[in-house]
């Protein structure tokens, strides 16, 4: 691994300045360090955000506020979340392994990079990494998305799907926005699926109110410790059922509860995922009732 500098500032302004100068943000580092190890989006400096006082879970009124550096394990363990946001707890519990959940943070989970095996290949520089070619489209894309596009990799964050159906908002160093707006498709000019500007980072996630019922279901490649092939979250507010999926599109993808695979035709090697998506969507819908 190429050597890099490490800073752990106690001041958000200092962190932002370092990030603007080209450093990369780090929560638990469970994704970041494995990227740097392979020369993916290399940086000379890493800024650890965990000394900024951004950890903690606060319940107020009907909602909940989760600091960006709160560990995924703390979300999974939190009694209030377990009681009022069971789908979020299930999603936290679905992340990787116990070790990864202890180290991994909520901000890092929401901002993690795609898992496409070409993107993660140490010797290839694919389109999303700034290169010319999307190797997946001409190569082996059996685990990729259901949507055609410049990049066919899938959103990997379990928490993103669960938070999306809860109408979560994210707070960054400079603004507040619906979680859905944090993500957007990468373009030729901007090869990133996040809207964050240089120096900007997540400080918290807020869920305004508890649903009447919520759930998160995934199918992985083995019984535990696997990214979701497809993960589906559902929440019901009164008669209104919201659904979203990961593993099917570049972005955490809202679904139409009545036609979950709509607009997701599947690619040559991924059509099978439609069936999987339909099954999980119907399981999730059944779990929230109505």
């Amino acid at each position, binding site marked *: 691994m190429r050597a890099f500098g490490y800073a752990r500032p106690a001041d958000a302004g200092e962190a932002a300045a370092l990030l603007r100068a080209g450093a990369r943000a780090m929560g638990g580092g469970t994704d970041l360090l494995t990227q740097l190890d392979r020369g993916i989006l290399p940086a000379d400096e890493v800024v650890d955000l965990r000394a900024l006082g951004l950890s903690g879970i606060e319940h107020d009124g009907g909602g909940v506020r989760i600091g960006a550096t709160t560990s995924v394990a703390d979300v999974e363990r939190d009694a209030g979340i377990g009681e009022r946001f069971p789908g979020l707890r299930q999603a936290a519990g679905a992340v990787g392994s116990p070790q990864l959940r202890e180290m991994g943070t909520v901000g890092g989970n929401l901002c993690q990079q795609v898992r496409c095996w070409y993107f993660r290949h140490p010797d*290839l520089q694919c389109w999303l990494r700034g290169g010319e070619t999307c190797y997946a489209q001409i190569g082996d894309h059996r685990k990729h998305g259901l949507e055609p596009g410049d990049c066919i990799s899938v959103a990997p964050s379990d928490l993103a799907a669960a938070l999306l159906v809860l109408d979560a908002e994210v707070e960054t160093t400079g603004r507040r926005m619906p979680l859905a707006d944090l993500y957007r498709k990468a373009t030729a000019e901007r090869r990133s699926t996040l809207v964050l500007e240089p120096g900007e980072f997540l400080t918290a996630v807020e869920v305004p109110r508890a649903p009447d019922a919520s759930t998160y279901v995934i199918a992985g490649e083995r*019984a*535990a410790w696997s990214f979701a092939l497809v993960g589906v979250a559902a929440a019901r507010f009164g008669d209104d059922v919201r659904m979203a999926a990961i593993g099917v599109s570049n972005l955490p993808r809202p679904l139409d509860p009545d036609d979950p695979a709509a607009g997701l035709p599947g690619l040559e090697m991924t059509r099978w995922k439609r069936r999987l998506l339909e099954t999980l969507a119907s399981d999730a819908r059944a779990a929230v009732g109505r």
Partner: protein
Amino acid sequence: MTAKLVKTEAVVEGRTEVRWTLVEEDDTPEFEDGAPTRPVGEPTPRISARARTTGSARYTVDVALPGLLEAVVLRSPHANARVTSLDLDAARAVPGVRCVLGPGEGPEHAGSPLTDAPAFAGAAIAVVAADTPDAAEAGVAALAPEYEVLGFVSTIDDGFEKQDFLEEPTEHVRGDPDAALSAAEVTVEASYAVPAQLHNSLEPHAAVADWREDGLTVWSSTQAIFDARSTIADAFGLEPDQVRIICEFMGGGFGSKFGVGPQGLLAAELSRRARRPVRLVNSRREENLAAGFRTPAKMDYTIGASRDGRLEAVEATAMIGMGTGGWPFPVLEPVKSVYACPNLRLMTAPVRMNLGPSAAFRAPGVMEGTFGFEQALDELAEKVGIDPIEIRRLNHTENDPESGKPYTSKGLLKAYERAAELAGWEGRDGLRGDGRVRRGMGVASQYWWGAGGPPAYAEVRIGKSARPTVTVGLQDLGTGTMTACAVIASERLGIPAGEITVHAGDTSRIGHGPASGGSMTLASIAPAVRMAAHSVRTDILGLAADMFEIAASDLTLEDGEIRSVDGTLREPVTEVTGKLGNAWISGSGSRGPNPDGMNVNTFGCQIAQIAVDTGTGAVTVERVVAVHDIGRVVNPMGARSQVMGGVLQAIGFALMEERVVDPTTGTVVNAGLEDYKVPTIADVPEVVCEFVGDPDPHLRMGVKGLGEPPIIPTAAAIGNALAHALGVRLREAPYTPRRVLEALGA
């Protein structure tokens, strides 16, 4: 004791080796029928369990020596290329770099492990040894290689199309297959394909070499310390006695770690040049690119049978994806050896591909071939309307179908019976259900070698404090061989296994012991250990006879005591050994040859019960019943743990493990543990394990091997269970959600 040289034959993973060995006459009495064998046959915890779990066990990667250099290898990113530029001098100029080897360099008398014509992504081009890993990596970066990129072959079909074979394809014919096939009342044609499975031993390939004036010491993670020694000695023009190989603990090898490997050769050459000890350890990625794999294969079977299910003829073809090295594994062995069948044609084509060299992997060839043939056999059973176990019984053979030789023992029929009972085979059709989740049960037979044989030597010593040591010339790759050695010595010495120290993994301590492979290790060493321990026992009892004035034949050793048969004498062994001062009693033992004119094989059968979710394609193995004939079981706890490991590794093969090669670049896209999935504890089913073999009457101690057998039938049984559950057969492993859903029409 008199020693003589004998010529012996040993079957190592399907290949017969003939060798001369020195054996001593063995007058150790066999176990008598019904007499106690304690602790042989009783569960004994692994003697190294504490060291392994507390971290005090020293693996090769843990070896730290003063002045140690760290070595890093430059590997090709291209599937096929020529190196057009490489700046060795720039690497040598990097601060901290002590030695750099480029293409063609290496030990004087061996082919260089470094090449400027890399024929797979991951091929080694150069190696840099430096004071720190960072300096070594900086050295590698300074090499600034440039390549001319060439075309490549990444699939078996393309390699076959080009007729590019690692070795000439072979054909084996028995009887008249053409006539028998055209006359057959029933024929079945079936094709199966399996991917490359990657070993992923938790401990990577590693070596630490220390070249000194008076000789060379290499710590090596190896399954064969003596093979490692001869490879190193030959490569450097040294006498074997000048080379010492040490392997104290291993974290698996599964067939990929015979010899010293390129790590040992390169570390030794770097150490020779730099005059410093050198450590070379593979990263996980290097493991998965360059350290071997179970060969992918495409298998086609045409089976001819009578209407009542008797095999008349089989024609089978196996195309094996060798990569750039390895030997053609016996993929069609199950067709040849498991059932009676008078007519065969077996064709094997070992295809070259631009991938790393393949390596033996726990039951190489046979496991993949069992996956194909045992499923094809079920297709025949279905076609003729016979129960799958019944068709196996019907085609049972009492003699080796190829040579006609009898087996020394064969408990296969007993295994079918017991497995069916334990699994509830009778009720299998009632399991299936018609909802979203379906269940199924499938069976498969297991055939393997596992006789062991000479040369294998052991020494047992006991001193003043009566805490014996057993010294053997083998290495324990994690299978518990050392514990079994303690158990065997314990029975003769009457001293608990836990109080016995076993020395292994060091070529300087004793003569040759078996490699850890081919299910041969314990079957080879067991009689030698028992013989050595018996000799010590005889001496102790002789001394006791003089001391207590009771005939030696009326004395025994039990629970650390010398006892008379009539019960009048009970004295601690230390009454005798305590008089030894600084001397000790020692005994040596050697393994004699196997009987002539007979085949020694292990047999067994497994039944898998699975559940498949037709909505998600997820297959769950719920239960595996494993019943094997391995002769006498020395340590049931160790044996059970071998079965658990074999079954689990086969579940990985059946459900999730698959090396994926990118068709555009020819590089492996899942050469790491996040995308190459191996099972975790959550995938472990209930495993019911029983041994039905009697002690083999033709082998000393009656012990056969167990390393390979448990992995052999599991995946085939899962395949048969899946077909039973779905009524659809999946022809390609692994059975991922994608393959299941596609088979169901998604």
